């Protein structure tokens, strides 16, 4: 499968972007269309501890309890459309026939029933687990201990064949280097890990997913960089955290978006996965629908852009919540209430032709809450998209350009504008700009440099990336 790199923007200007609309809407599932004028709530969940005990207990948890609760609540509140996301747990990728198949099939069967009875638009995203371990080998034939690469691909097939509407994954290529780099604030290492190695790994993985999707007449959604940029964001945290500076996290997000784009370049149609916050950038480039999460995904993690990130979403997600009882119902029902109502608000704004205004309110609320929020504001996201497409054919240069552009945007605004940085964030920003500026202009030189510098990083094996 040929990879078609993005070398120009699908959107002509930032202002064209708004939630609930994308250049290339996608239809799938049971009457579902995403990106064509309606924001759809996407509800994610995790089983209770112990549910994984055996295949039947897991099926019951996912189907009889979680899926049923969600569908009932959607009808109860009058939501016209809902997407479910099931993030596969380890057992489901390790023994897909045994653990995943009954879940995938059972969910779809129940959804079909509600679709038939109530005419509610429904779809389900299956996010396959990526269990591959760099230390054992990322490609087929390399991991003699667990055969994870083979199992990973097989589990995608099982999902596609048994009822998934949308296939996604948070692939982990290059993570071993990024993990090392993040703890040392080494932006070059991070760029190498995610921007470069991650893009190579995705170019291996995603054509296979797209093929499987095509064969089964379902959709290949997209990837997000949970493994990298979300880890940065998570560790950078909020105003009480001191693990890593938020300027570093912001720049890694920009770099990650150059990587996340690869799924779509391999033929995936979107909607992109929630979980990552690269959506505004990749949507600006490719015009495909994205799922985003923010203020209503605090069940899963806090962020510093809870409203802003809704600005250009097509699905609005809660990221994930453990299934358990609350006063208001089960946890999935409660969070569905929040995301469903937020989606309804956005849809009202669309109907009243006030969507761009609401978008701007979302954006303005958090524009200066953190550097990451700032670079993801749709105008800045667009600029980062431009930097990526300018070097669209070179996975190294485009990731670097994304990083530098983000860093410069932050720098300029912190000097002349309203974005305030702590001293430590400023120091880090200066170091990032210096480090990135010092990098060579050629891929081969960069790779040589990095292979040398990171050869002792635990678990890093260049053969995983054909290097």
């Amino acid at each position, binding site marked *: 499968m040929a990879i078609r790199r993005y070398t120009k923007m699908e959107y002509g200007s930032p202002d064209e972007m708004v939630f609930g609309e994308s250049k290339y809407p996608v239809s799938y599932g049971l009457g579902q269309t995403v990106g064509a004028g309606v924001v759809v709530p996407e509800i994610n969940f995790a089983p209770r501890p112990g549910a994984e005990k055996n295949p039947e207990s897991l099926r019951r948890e996912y189907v009889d309890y979680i899926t049923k609760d969600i569908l009932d609540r959607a009808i109860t509140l009058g939501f016209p459309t809902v997407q479910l996301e099931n993030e596969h747990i380890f057992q489901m990728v390790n023994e897909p026939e045994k653990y995943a198949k009954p879940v995938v099939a059972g969910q779809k069967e129940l959804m079909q029933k509600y679709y038939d009875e109530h005419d509610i638009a429904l779809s389900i995203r299956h996010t396959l687990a990526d269990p591959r371990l760099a230390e054992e080998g990322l490609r087929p034939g390399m991991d003699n201990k667990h055969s994870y690469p083979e199992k990973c691909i097989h589990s995608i097939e099982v999902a596609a064949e048994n009822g998934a509407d949308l296939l996604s994954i948070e692939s982990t290529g290059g993570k071993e280097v990024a993990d090392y780099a993040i703890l040392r604030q080494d932006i070059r290492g991070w760029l190498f890990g995610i921007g470069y190695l991650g893009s190579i790994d995705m170019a291996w993985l995603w054509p296979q997913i797209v093929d499987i999707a095509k064969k089964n007449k379902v959709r290949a959604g997209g990837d997000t960089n949970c493994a990298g940029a979300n880890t940065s964001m998570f560790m950078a945290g909020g105003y009480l955290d001191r693990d890593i500076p938020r300027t570093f996290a912001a720049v890694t997000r920009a770099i990650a978006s150059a990587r996340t784009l690869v799924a779509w370049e391999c033929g995936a149609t979107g909607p992109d996965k929630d979980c990552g916050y690269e959506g505004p950038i990749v949507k600006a480039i490719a015009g495909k629908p994205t799922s985003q999460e923010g203020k209503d995904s605090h069940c899963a993690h806090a962020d510093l852009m809870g409203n802003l990130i809704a600005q250009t979403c097509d699905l609005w997600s809660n990221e994930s919540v453990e299934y358990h009882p609350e006063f208001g119902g089960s946890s999935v029902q409660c969070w569905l209430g929040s995301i469903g109502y937020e989606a309804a608000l956005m849809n009202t704004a669309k*109907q009243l*032709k006030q969507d761009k205004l609401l978008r701007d309110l979302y954006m303005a609320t958090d524009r200066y809450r953190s550097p990451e929020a700032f670079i993801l504001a749709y105008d800045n996201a667009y600029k980062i998209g431009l930097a990526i497409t300018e070097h669209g054919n070179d996975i190294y240069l485009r990731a670097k350009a994304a990083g530098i552009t983000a860093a410069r945007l932050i720098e300029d605004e912190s000097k002349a504008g309203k974005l305030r940085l702590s001293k430590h964030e400023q120091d880090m920003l200066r170091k990032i700009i210096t480090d990135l500026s010092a990098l060579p202009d050629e891929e081969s030189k960069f790779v040589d440099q990095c292979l040398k510098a990171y050869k002792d990083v635990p678990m890093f094996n260049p053969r995983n990336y054909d290097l």
Partner: protein
Amino acid sequence: MLDLKSVNFDRILKRYDIQMESKESPEELAARMVPKDPTLRKVAEDVVFMRYKTVNDNVIAALKEYSPEDVIERGLIKGMDVVGELYGRGIYYLPHVMVAADAMDKGVKLCESKMKGVRETRGKVVMHVAEGDPHDIGKNIAAVLLKSNGYTVVDMGRDVAIADVVTTVEHEKPHIVTGTALMTTTMSAFPKIADKLQAKGVNIPFICAGGAVNRAYVESYPLGVFAAKAIQGPVLANKIVDGYDWRKLRENWDKLTAVKE
């Protein structure tokens, strides 16, 4: 205010309730289900259509042809069965059930006054709301449904001390004891009650319900059987008088409670 004329509300919300409305009428369903005999039929219809005013006269008329036991079983309770069915199908709402139950109650009282001994009911249930907890609506609904399904209910009310529950159970010797708790800080009374009952050798099912508790919690102590909805009360009770103990109820819980939602 913004002008809402142009809004397509179907893209914002969907009125599933209206879409689901039953096409069937109570009259149609009742016509199929009430007894054929014209005298008993009138009694049953008084319950189904909540005719609090005529029920007395019709019961008196029926008592001329039938024994009080028959008027209850084949007239009044039959009517209540129809009500349950109408509720189950979404044609009736809860208040219909409550008002129908009031009508039935009136008829039952009348019949009982004509009986020789005490009426034999399906079983006896002691009900209460946990100590410190004032939330009693759910318990009240459940009590009405149990009564209208032929059970004798000893309603201890709300904010009931643990010791009182235990004493009443010892004294009344019911088939079932129930507890309702809507607060996480009152429900801890239930395991204590269960322990004390067991210590006294009482092994009847202890149906626990109310917003605060869930199945896992209720099944974490002996005797406990969870109920999510008041309508499950009669379902569980019927099994109990059929001989199910609390362990067997737990095992079959998913199946039993799926019957009616």
